[in-house]
C-alpha cells in the first residue's frame, strides 16, 4: 500500500471519529436549545440556574445520567435489555457514513483536497433509509425486554408507526431520485445547484413540493417527535418504550432521538434544499450554509413540538396509510409523467 492510500484511510478514520464526536456531543447543545425554545415559546426563560443562561444545564444532566443508578427490572430479558439502546443508537450513527456535508475543501497548510463526506455511495439514499430503519429494533426490543406492559405497548406502537411511515418516507424520496436521476446524495446535491430563471434556486423543493410535505411529515413520525410522539405518550403510556430505562441506557435512547432529528434535518436539506448550495447570490462558504439550513430544520422540529398537540394513535395511522401513502404514490406518478 502506498502512502496515499494510507493517508486516505487515515483521513477516513479521522472523519469517522470527527463525525462521531460531533454526533455524540450534539445532544448537549440541542437539549439546551430545545429547553430554551420550549421556555421562550411558553413565555418562560427555560433553564437559567446552571451556568450563564443555564448553558451548563445539559452538562449537569449528563453528569446526573452518568451517576444515576442503573436499574433493570427483575424479570427483564437482561441481554436484550442491555443491547436495545445499542440497537437503537448504532444505526442512527451508521447513517452518517453516507451523508455528505459539503463537496470538497482544500486544507490550507497541507494543501490537500478533502471530501466532506465519509463515502459517496451510489445507493446512498437507499442505504440511509435502510439503515435508519434498523433503529426501530432498539425501540421494539427495549420495549419488549423491559417486561413491562407500558414499555411493550410503547415499543409496539413505535414499530408500527415507523414501519408505516417508512413507506411514505421512502416513496417521497423516490420523487427526488427521479428528478435528480441518481441515488447518490452527492449527485442529488449537485443537481440542485444553480438557479431557475436566474433568481429561484434550483432546489428540489420547487419540483417536489408535495414530496417535501410528505417527507417532512413522515420524518416527524419516523423520529418520534410531536405531533407524532405516540410511542412515548406520557399521558397514556407513562413514558413509552423506555419507561424502565434509567441512567446511561436511557441517555442512549435520548441520544438516538436527537441524532435522528439531526438526520432528518440533514436529509431534508440534502434532498430538497440544495444541501450546501448557497441560496440566492449568497457567498459560498463551505459547510456554513449546510449547517445553517440543518439548524433551521432542527429549530423547525422544536418549534413544531411546542406548537402542535399530539395526534391520537388511530389518527396517526390513518394519516400514514390513507393520506401520505396514496399521496406519495401520486407524487411518483406525477413526477414520472413530468419526466416523460
Amino acid at each position, binding site marked *: 500500500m502506498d502512502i496515499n492510500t494510507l493517508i486516505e484511510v487515515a483521513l477516513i478514520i479521522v472523519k469517522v471519529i470527527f463525525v462521531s464526536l460531533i454526533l455524540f456531543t450534539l445532544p448537549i447543545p440541542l437539549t439546551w436549545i430545545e429547553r430554551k*425554545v420550549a*421556555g*421562550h*415559546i*411558553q*413565555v*418562560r*426563560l427555560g433553564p*437559567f*440556574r446552571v451556568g450563564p443562561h443555564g448553558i451548563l444545564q445539559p452538562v449537569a444532566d449528563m453528569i446526573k445520567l452518568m451517576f444515576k443508578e442503573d436499574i433493570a427490572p427483575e424479570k427483564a430479558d437482561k441481554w436484550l435489555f442491555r443491547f436495545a439502546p445499542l440497537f437503537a443508537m448504532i444505526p442512527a450513527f451508521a447513517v452518517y457514513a453516507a451523508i455528505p456535508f459539503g463537496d470538497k475543501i482544500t486544507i490550507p497548510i497541507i494543501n490537500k483536497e478533502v471530501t466532506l463526506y465519509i463515502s459517496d455511495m451510489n445507493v446512498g439514499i437507499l442505504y440511509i433509509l435502510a439503515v435508519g430503519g434498523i433503529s426501530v429494533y432498539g425501540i421494539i426490543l427495549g420495549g419488549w425486554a423491559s417486561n413491562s406492559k407500558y414499555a411493550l405497548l410503547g415499543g409496539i406502537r413505535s414499530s408500527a408507526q415507523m414501519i408505516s411511515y417508512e413507506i411514505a418516507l421512502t416513496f417521497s424520496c423516490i420523487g427526488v431520485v427521479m428528478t435528480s436521476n441518481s441515488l447518490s446524495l452527492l449527485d442529488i446535491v449537485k443537481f440542485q445547484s444553480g438557479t431557475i430563471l436566474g433568481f429561484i434556486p434550483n432546489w428540489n423543493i420547487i419540483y417536489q413540493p408535495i414530496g417535501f*410535505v410528505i417527507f417532512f411529515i413522515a420524518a416527524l413520525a419516523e423520529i418520534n417527535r410531536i405531533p407524532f410522539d405516540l410511542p412515548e405518550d406520557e399521558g397514556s403510556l407513562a413514558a413509552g418504550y423506555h419507561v424502565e430505562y434509567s441512567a446511561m441506557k436511557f441517555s442512549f435512547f435520548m441520544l438516538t432521538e436527537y441524532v435522528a432529528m439531526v438526520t432528518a434535518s440533514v436529509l431534508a436539506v440534502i434532498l430538497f434544499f440544495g444541501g450546501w448550495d448557497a441560496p440566492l447570490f449568497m457567498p459560498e462558504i463551505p459547510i456554513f450554509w449546510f449547517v445553517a439550513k440543518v439548524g433551521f430544520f432542527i429549530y423547525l422540529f422544536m*418549534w*413544531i413540538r*411546542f*406548537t*402542535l398537540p399530539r395526534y391520537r394513535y388511530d389518527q396517526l395511522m390513518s394519516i400514514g396509510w390513507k393520506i401520505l401513502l396514496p399521496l406519495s404514490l401520486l407524487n411518483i406518478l406525477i413526477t414520472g409523467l413530468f419526466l416523460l
Partner: protein
Amino acid sequence: MSIFKKIFFIDFIKGLSLTLGYEVSKSVTMRYPDEEKWAPYQRFRGLHTLNRDAQGRELCVACELCAKACPTKCITVVPMEDDKGIGISDRIAKVYEINLVRCMFCGLCEDACPTTAIRMGRDYELACFSLDCAAADKKRLLAPREIPQEFEGGYVVMARLERNKEGINIKPDLTRKKRWW
C-alpha cells in the same frame, strides 16, 4: 376555502406564527430565588406572625381562641403568668406552636384573635429538610420578618440568594421593586 387552507397548511402556519410571536416576546418568568422574589399582597396568607405592640410587648394573651377556631387543630397554646411586662397582659403564652404540616392557612386564627396578635404573614418559603422546622414555635413566629407587614405587596422585589450553614436564605431588597407581568 377550506381546501385551500388544508393544502397550504394555513392553520399550521398560524399556529407556528403564534408560537414564534411568543418566543420573541418578553418572558414572564420570575427569577426566584436568584434575583427576584414575589412580595405578596398584604392580604396573603403565609406563615403566621405573632405581633408586638408599639412598645414591643407581645400582643398575644394566650387566650387560645385561635387554637379553638383552628379547623385542623394545629395550634397549641399553653398560657403562663408573667409580671415582667413581656406582654400587654399578665397572661402570656408559654408555648405557642403551630404545626405547619397540618395548617391549611385558612386564616381563621386571625379572625378569632381578639388582640390582633396572630396574623397571617407573607412568608411562603416553608420547605425544609427535616420535620423540626414544620413546627413553628413562639420564637420563630415572633421574629421580625424580612417583608414587614406594612410593606405594600403585589410587587416583585429584587432578592439575593444566600447559602450559609443554617441553610438557604433569600434576602429581599424591598427598595427595588417592580410590577410583575
